[in-house]
């Protein structure tokens, strides 16, 4: 475990020493502040459009950070040959995968804390309320969804040679799931065989990370808290997908030549 945490520590250091996060965070703040400064019929209590915009930017930024950070981990180790001294240590390939995953996931968790604190402050500046439990529910499911995306990207980084192709494929796949994932079964119903079965299979196979994404609406429009039972079930569902992708990544990496 110590080894895995050591590897994770390096990934976290990499994130906060690179400029990606700062650029996206500052961009989010600037866009939100500009939008907040717009005078809408002299009413300074209008907040939901700002909350929606801010949450959307948080999702986009976090996905960009998660996918780009994860996609370069193993290829960079290979390219710069740091994989060799690393694997020459008493370290298994499974530990390496887990360490990289944990590092990216924890780093994204830290990123989310920063973003959600800003989101909370932005919302509180207008509506003078801190629905912390709602924000916690949104943030924890967001983090879990990022975990699935990170595990998937890590697997992709072992399958596809170039980080750019992996990133592009992951972005397209995640964007598709977020936009139409929930309706694929409805789409399948309108199609004939064999396309119907293919779309159905895809619908049941994909990780439904759009569930936390669509939860934004509840936060934006101040809906009551979701039952903790459902939150727990969704966490378990997303953890299962993380495990599936990680096991697949370990299996692929075991057969992969180091150089």
């Amino acid at each position, binding site marked *: 475990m110590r080894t895995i945490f050591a590897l994770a520590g390096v990934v976290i*250091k990499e994130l906060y020493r690179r400029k990606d996060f700062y650029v996206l965070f500052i961009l989010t703040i600037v866009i939100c502040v500009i939008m907040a400064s717009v005078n809408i019929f002299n009413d300074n209590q209008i907040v939901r459009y700002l909350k929606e915009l801010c949450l959307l930017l948080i999702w986009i930024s976090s996905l960009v950070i998660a996918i780009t950070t994860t996609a370069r981990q193993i290829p960079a180790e290979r390219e710069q040959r740091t994989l060799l*001294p690393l*694997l020459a240590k008493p370290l298994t390939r499974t530990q390496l995968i887990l360490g990289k995953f944990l590092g990216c996931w924890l780093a994204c968790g830290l990123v989310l804390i920063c973003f959600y604190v800003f989101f909370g402050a932005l919302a509180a500046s207008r509506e003078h309320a801190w629905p912390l439990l709602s924000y916690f529910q949104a943030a924890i499911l967001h983090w879990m969804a990022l975990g699935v995306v990170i595990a998937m990207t890590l697997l992709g980084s072992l399958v596809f040679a170039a980080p750019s192709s992996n990133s592009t494929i992951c972005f397209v796949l995640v964007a598709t799931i977020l936009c139409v994932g929930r309706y694929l079964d409805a789409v399948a119903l309108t199609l004939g065989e064999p396309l119907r079965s293919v779309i159905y299979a895809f619908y049941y196979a994909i990780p439904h990370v759009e569930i936390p994404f669509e939860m934004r609406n509840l936060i934006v429009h101040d809906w009551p808290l979701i039952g903790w039972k459902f939150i727990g079930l969704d966490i378990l569902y997303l953890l299962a997908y993380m495990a599936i992708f990680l096991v697949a990544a370990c299996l692929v990496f075991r057969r992969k030549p180091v150089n």
Partner: protein
Amino acid sequence: MSVILKTDKLRVEFKSREFRQSPKVALSGLDLEVGTGEVFGFLGPNGAGKTTTINVLLGFVQPTSGAAALFGIDVRQPIARQRIGYLPEMTYYYKFLSAEELLRFYAKIFGLPRNETDKRIAQLLKLVELEHASKRQIKTYSKGMQQRVGLAQALINNPDLLVLDEPTSGLDPVGRMKVREIIQRLKNEGKTVFFASHELGEVETVCDRVAIISEGELKAIGRVSEIVAQHPSLEKAFLEVIGYKPQLA
């Protein structure tokens, strides 16, 4: 003198990516034994199988047949690598870390206690003469400094066996001299060094025994003094063993 590194009829074949091409034999029946406290030079022309041998010893490549062991443990077991240090050729370490952070990271992988880590890092930075730059990020280092950081990381666990793959390649004469001095010092401390190189002069200076391989096969093995005694120089011996005939008389 106990045997630290042993290969037994080691054979490695790589499947060809081209259709109906027979597999490429990288190593064929390699038998090596390296004893405690030896500095062992592993020589061969490019593509002879030196790096493949090291990759097998470090568990990066699975042998097609035969066996390899470190400290009597099969190299496929991660524990076999607990007491070794490895310096690969041309490695660019994590640019965003400082030398101290890099060494601390590798120390954690070995599970070294914190106080021992601090002591060890201080010793190694002094050994590789990087104390002044220990807090600077590695991306600001020269090539020679990066190579010395690599040497320091290879020594973080105070290994009994050090595997060096072309440790002086790409370095200027001063850099080479420094690396050579460090190897000499390790030799004096009684460490075992397995040293793959093209630099025959270097090998002649620091090694006790050498092995010469060519096309995946062991061509010669013995003490440096024995090999040099039969030829005008190690270079001549090397060229003769690998079967090179000069074009110009």
